């Protein structure tokens, strides 16, 4: 049963061949066994999950219609608001925060009859690339427990890789789904900005954040998209379906894309480790063998992406995180003498170092006299990067590149070197700046048997095509079936 994909499990549950209670019970058995080492979850809900599983089983036995994720144990990142349990963002400032409402994606998962087993660890407020910035817990990489799972959705990626759930949701502001998926040898999809509702996703960089699936297979990513994609009237930035209709992402998934033209950006790839480059080239060879054409494309403004990204993301974050002030909810300092101290002391006590660093960067970038030089300029760069992609996609259907320059690094290796950490986002952030979808799929291993991801980027709202392209590779290889040592 552990071998099954989410889609296969769902089919067996719906057919009555396995019960959801069995599947959910087995997941909790594995959690009991492996979670003490992996540390993927900030909270788990054994009783409510099993009760829900039993309810799904009962409905199936009664011949009722059930949803697309009926009985499937899934996990969500702890920055998605849920009325069950806490919603902490892995921050001490929200450690005991209980949301009075469900995020739209949580509602959608529940409506699809998924069984939510827990909420996963992350870098505090999604700020980080290793999950080491969690204020509450350490998560390790199931492939090598001395290494990071990536971040910020490290808990979700580790949970899927460790088979502690069948699928999970992450959020991606600058690579936070794709990079941990790459580090953990699983599939991670960042949809187009506006494709999935952000309502209830605790904001980090509002114009960049997007929720997406982390799964074992491309098929499961398509299945998850079928559940979570679509317009939400509660999110003004979610795209009207008249403009960009959602489709059944599973329907044509197995059809290879004909006359596929793959764009590559040679000058970018050279920055990655040799093992990463080798895996990338091998993956591209697989596509070539399937008849794809390779075209070189230019990304003239990619050098400025990291700078622009860290200005826009931190500027938005400095404003988004202003509400955590100890006044209305969350941690409040007991040392405050007046209301200004309620703000300053509560925030000083409960925010982690990286969060403070980004708030200060963002506050500075928005300050009067600096706005034009930083924020406004970053917006201009963003437009240029968008244009780079638009022009590139006139020549190709997708662009392939590494997800990260390296495989999973050692715990503690980069914590004291934020700049190096920031630079590790070099391949992923452009998609967030441009708002386009990107996926990471397992494409090989390095000399330490650590997984390497292949990143595929596609034009806005072309998730269906993107998934089909990813599926072409998956169909030709068995990399997605490789299991980490701990499993």
């Amino acid at each position, binding site marked *: 049963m552990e071998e099954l994909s989410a889609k296969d499990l769902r089919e067996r549950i719906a057919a009555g061949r396995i019960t959801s209670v069995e599947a959910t019970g087995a997941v909790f058995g594995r959690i009991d066994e492996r979670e003490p080492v992996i540390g993927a979850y900030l909270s788990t809900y054994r009783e409510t999950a099993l009760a829900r599983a039993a309810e799904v089983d009962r409905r199936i036995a009664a011949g009722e219609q059930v949803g697309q994720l009926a009985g499937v144990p899934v996990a969500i990142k702890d920055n998605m608001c849920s009325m069950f349990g806490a919603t902490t963002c892995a921050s001490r400032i929200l450690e005991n925060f209980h949301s009075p409402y469900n995020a739209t994606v949580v509602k959608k998962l529940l409506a699809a009859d998924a069984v939510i087993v827990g909420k996963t660890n992350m870098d505090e407020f999604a700020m980080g690339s290793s999950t080491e910035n969690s204020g509450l817990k350490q998560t390790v990489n199931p492939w090598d427990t001395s290494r990071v799972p990536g971040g910020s959705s490290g808990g979700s990626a580790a949970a899927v890789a460790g088979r502690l759930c069948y699928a999970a949701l992450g959020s991606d502001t600058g690579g936070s789904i794709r990079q941990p998926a790459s580090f953990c040898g699983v599939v991670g999809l960042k949809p187009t900005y506006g494709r999935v509702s952000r309502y209830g996703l605790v904001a980090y960089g509002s114009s960049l954040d997007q929720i997406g699936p982390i799964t074992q297979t491309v098929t499961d990513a398509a299945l998850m998209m079928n559940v979570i994609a679509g317009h939400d009237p509660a*999110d003004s930035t979610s795209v009207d379906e008249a403009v960009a209709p959602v489709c059944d992402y599973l329907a044509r998934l197995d059809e290879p894309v004909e006359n596929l033209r793959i764009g590559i950006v040679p000058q970018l790839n050279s920055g990655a480790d040799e093992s990463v480059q080798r895996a990338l080239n091998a993956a591209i060879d697989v596509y070539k063998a399937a008849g794809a054409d390779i075209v070189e494309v230019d990304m003239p403004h990619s050098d400025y992406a990291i700078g622009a990204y860290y200005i826009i993301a931190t500027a938005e974050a400095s404003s988004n995180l202003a509400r955590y002030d100890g*006044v209305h909810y969350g941690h409040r300092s007991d040392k405050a003498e007046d209301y200004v101290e309620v703000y300053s002391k509560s925030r000083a006590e409960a925010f982690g170092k990286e969060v403070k660093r980004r708030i200060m960067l963002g506050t500075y970038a928005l300050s009067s006299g600096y706005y034009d030089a930083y924020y406004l300029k970053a917006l201009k760069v963003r437009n240029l990067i968008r244009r780079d992609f638009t022009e590139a996609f006139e020549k190709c259907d997708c662009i392939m590149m590494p997800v990260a320059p390296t495989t999973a690094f050692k715990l503690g290796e980069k914590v004291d070197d934020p700049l190096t950490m920031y630079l590790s986002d070099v391949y992923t952030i452009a998609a967030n700046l441009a708002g386009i979808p990107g996926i990471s799929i397992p494409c090989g291993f390095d000399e330490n048997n650590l997984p390497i991801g292949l990143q595929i980027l596609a034009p806005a709202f072309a998730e269906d095509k993107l998934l089909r392209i990813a599926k072409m590779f998956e169909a030709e290889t068995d990399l997605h079936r490789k299991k980490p040592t701990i499993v």
Partner: protein
Amino acid sequence: MSDFQHKVIVGLEIHVQLCTRSKMFCGCAVAFGEQANSRVCPVCLGMPGVLPVMNKQAFEYAVLVGLALNCEIPSFTKWDRKSYYYPDLPKNYQISQYDLPLAKDGFIQIPPAGGKKAKGKDEADSAQSKRIGIIRAHLEEDAGKNLHTAGNFSSVDLNRTGTPLLEIVSEPDLSGGAEARALAVELQRIVRYLGVSEGDMQKGQMRFEPNINLVITKDGKEFKTPIVEVKNLNSFRALERSIDYEVQRQLDEFLETGLVLEMGNKTTRGWDDEREVTVLQREKEEAHDYRYFPEPDLVPVELTDAWLDEIRGRLCELPLARQVRYVEEYKLSDYDAGVLTGERGTADFFESAVATGGEPKRVCNLLTQVGLKLANEKGCGVDELGVTAQSVADLAGMVALGDVSAGAAAAIFEAMAETGKEPRLLADELSLIQKSDAGELEAMVDEVLAANPQAVKDVTSGGKKSKKARGFLLGQVMQKTKGQANPKVVSEIIARKFG
């Protein structure tokens, strides 16, 4: 000291709460006086993960005001975040509009301040209305209220949080407290006419913040005093008084210290309603950095021509234009026209009564002297008294024909409001039909003359006493007829007797 003059310069910022069904960015009802924190939801509480959704009605209301203020309405406008920390602002930023307001470069015509009581050529007054420039008008969300309760704690009521708030900024075209008041009154009339706000100051639906300074000419040189902003005024009176107070205070201060306007020496003062003085709140404009940036959670608003036309279609004739028209078309005094156009309901009712045949001046008298008083007592509009425009027109006709006296008409009006009956019916029921039959009245005059020889003597003797005695005789006849005699007819008969 011969060469010393000063000119007052006042600009006004006005906040108007819009009376939409729901708040600016969430579905909560806009409410006043409800239990604290009972009209809130995750969005207006600024909970983690929530997102705003623009209230289209609020946007349209704001555009409507912009149109009424003769503003340019750009086809593209956006939202910005204005950051500052305060407990009544749960997100610690306010969604507002910074560089692209939804309305700009307009003006408002205001009646001349204090000119309404001018006698004689009333008509000229409205024509002399003054034009005050409007720099911009933009929408934002209101904050909550900090309630400073006893002890070590303050509490916060967030019912008001997220109420649509229209901020209107005038050019510094106002010459003092009286003009500022006139603008405020006119704007209140306008928003009420448009039905976009009740403009109730007791409920904080209109708030004023004047910026005041003086240009002083002394010995051929010009000096500007430092600008003072008076915060959060919520009555016309406070607005006018605080400005007048500031003018005097700034004059005194200048004479004492010679302090002049410089970068950064703008101060903020509050108004002490009891002592009627302004009080320093913030010395120097603290380097306020609101760190404005475009609100990433909302898409910009693109106002198409069709949409703008649709909103324009909801404009109505504005109060001042209506007031001027009443003077021209109905030959009413400017004062009466101003009273009738004070509320749209009153003006509409007046026009209906005129349309059904009422003589404008008489309808006006009935409404201004009786109807409005009655409505005021009952706390409703003239149009809500249960009296039809037709019956007011009929009543005015009866007065015109001399069938009832002005005093009787008032009684009939009140009875109409009470019973909803027709005026003629009520006049009969209450025996208020005036006796105008000269024959019948002449006999009574004769009786009164016979019974009051001293008065008759006083009349014939002429002089001072004569006039008084005539009045006395008229009063006697009126008394005899229980007030139903037409005093005009009686006076004529008495005059004839003394031919």
